[in-house]
């Protein structure tokens, strides 16, 4: 991140409900384990960025992937939540998300 953002080609807009895919495969995965399979909503669209899953192996990072700030209710993430009304905010790439009705 840190580079100028000019466009976003991803599927989601702020407010869209999303579910994080529960994927596990070899490689450099930027989506933390604890958030996989959880449901939240798009808080912000950052823009398109080179894909770190490709950059991590010395490749070109193309095609770019849209990165979002995704919000979750703490109570939906942890079995026990200290402050249920708190939100958890995580940066997640488009290909890790699926739409929720």
């Amino acid at each position, binding site marked *: 991140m840190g580079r100028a953002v000019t466009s976003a080609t991803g599927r989601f807009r702020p407010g869209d409900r999303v579910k994080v895919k529960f994927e*596990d*495969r*070899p*490689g*450099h995965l930027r989506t*933390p*384990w*604890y958030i996989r399979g959880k449901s939240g909503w798009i808080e912000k669209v950052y823009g398109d960025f080179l894909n*770190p899953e490709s*950059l*991590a*192996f*010395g490749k070109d990072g193309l095609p770019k992937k849209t990165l979002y700030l995704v919000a979750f209710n703490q109570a939906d993430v*942890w079995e026990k939540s200290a402050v249920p009304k708190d939100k958890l905010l995580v940066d997640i790439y488009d290909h890790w998300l699926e739409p929720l009705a």
Partner: protein
Amino acid sequence: MARGHHDIGGLPGAGSIDVTEHQLADWEILADAVNQALGARGVKRTDEMRRAREEMDSSAYRDMTYYERWIASIETILIEKNILTKAEIDKKLAEFESKWGEP
């Protein structure tokens, strides 16, 4: 696949994050400087360094401090990209140790 040694957020035993202020040792500042210089020269990317740390032997990873892991990943990437060999690094290390003693 097993959950990676770097990805332990929320696991029982992961502990809380230490947010106290602490002084960096000189070698830690140097590790950061080398890392930044290699990035500025386009030798490596942050994602490559992270991947190298994720692929480390798990017990070695857990035994190392934060900047020890950085140094280990710098070494991995420099060898992977044929910029230095393991033999060259070990030779230099032996020179330093004979000059300044073992760390």
